[in-house]
């Protein structure tokens, strides 16, 4: 008679565990998948939106005598005023250094576009005037730094903040921690009594502490916090094999009303946090 009850209990228990584990697996799988899709698309989307906004900026586009401005048609004179000009397509190291040199960063009064704590390198190439020995191009870096956010979003701080935010203060969790403390204390007391100089009391205290810490967060919570605290360039590098997102969009470069060249604008984004 006792045997019947044991089998019953075991099978029922196994069912309950199986169903719970399956439901949890399904939920985590679904949530994690959608989270990662959002992360992957972010830098790509930002680069495309910035490139499109640059193509329509009043300080760069060509406007005719009636003050009608044309999207995607960049005025060569305006480009000269905003970007660094190169006839070597920035193959010359000195010219390229000027593009990334903080002294030549594009200020907000010239171009009020760009993301916070992101380095956006913009290169505009005149494809109709780009041969082996001569390639006309303009380049510049748009940088908007926010020191507070840079500090707040550093990976270690973010990881710690995420752990604190995901800390569970429910009664169920408290019971789990108390149980782990008791089990750890028992084990610690046994180990402490065997090791000379430690004693069962100190062993129990250490064991209780280890037990509580071990139950503070689930492995999923820790994995989630690790994913959240990874810096943007590393996320980009993991997902695309490159820490920078390059987006090239076709444009026209207007030298004067009769001289219009085909070109391309390449926006490279490096998101610092």
């Amino acid at each position: 008679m006792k045997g019947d009850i044991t089998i019953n209990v075991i099978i029922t228990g196994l069912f309950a565990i199986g169903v719970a584990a399956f439901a949890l697996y399904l939920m985590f799988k679904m949530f994690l998948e959608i989270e990662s899709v959002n992360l992957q698309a972010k830098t790509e989307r930002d680069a495309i939106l910035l490139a499109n906004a640059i193509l329509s900026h009043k300080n760069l586009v060509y406007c005719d005598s009636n003050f009608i401005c044309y999207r995607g048609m960049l005025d060569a004179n305006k480009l000269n005023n905003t970007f660094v000009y190169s006839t070597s397509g920035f193959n010359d190291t000195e010219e390229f250094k000027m593009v990334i040199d903080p002294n030549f960063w594009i200020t907000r009064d010239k171009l009020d576009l760009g993301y916070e704590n992101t380095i956006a390198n913009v290169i505009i190439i005149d494809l109709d005037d780009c041969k082996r020995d001569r390639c006309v191009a303009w380049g510049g870096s748009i940088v908007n730094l926010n020191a507070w956010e840079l500090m707040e979003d550093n990976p270690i701080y973010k990881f710690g903040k995420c752990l604190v935010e995901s800390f569970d203060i429910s009664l169920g969790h408290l019971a789990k921690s108390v149980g782990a403390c008791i089990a750890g204390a028992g084990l610690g007391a046994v180990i402490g009594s065997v090791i000379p100089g430690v004693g069962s009391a100190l062993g129990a205290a250490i064991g209780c502490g280890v037990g509580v810490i071990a139950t503070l967060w689930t492995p999923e919570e820790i994995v989630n916090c690790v994913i959240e605290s990874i810096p943007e360039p590393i996320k980009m590098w993991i997902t695309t094999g490159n820490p920078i997102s390059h987006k090239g969009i076709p444009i026209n470069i207007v030298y004067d009303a009769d001289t219009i060249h085909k070109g391309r604008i390449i926006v490279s984004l490096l998101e610092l946090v």
Partner: protein
Amino acid sequence: MKLQLEIKWFLAIFIVTVITLLILSKLVSIALSQLYQIIAESSSQNVAIQLASLMSATGSIMGRIEVEYIPSNDISYDIEVDSMGKEIAVKAKFPQIYIQKITSEAKFCTSFDSQKIQDVNRFVIEKYEENGRVYYRLSAWRINE
């Protein structure tokens, strides 16, 4: 003999339960994904991304534009544009108590004024020109349907 009979019954129930669970798992999966879809569409993260994308996208228009965005009629949101006018934080206030109220941030490449608005669900993003200068404006209200 009695024990053997009971184990046979258990095995029968076990097999039937496994088959039922396999069928149900598909239904559960569909139900969960539908629930997730509803929550995801109105979530803080999604609304923050959508708003930031629209705020950036207004920059790609020549001249004046007005974009309206209503993520949900039932859920209200708290929004905050940061002091540099380059990042928006959104907090979705789901009426269901089991959904955590998380704040999500997203960045945009245009420049908006710093502001804080609470309990809204209709957003209007504008780009306009005044005295030869370009301005961007985010307005928000609460609508019920």
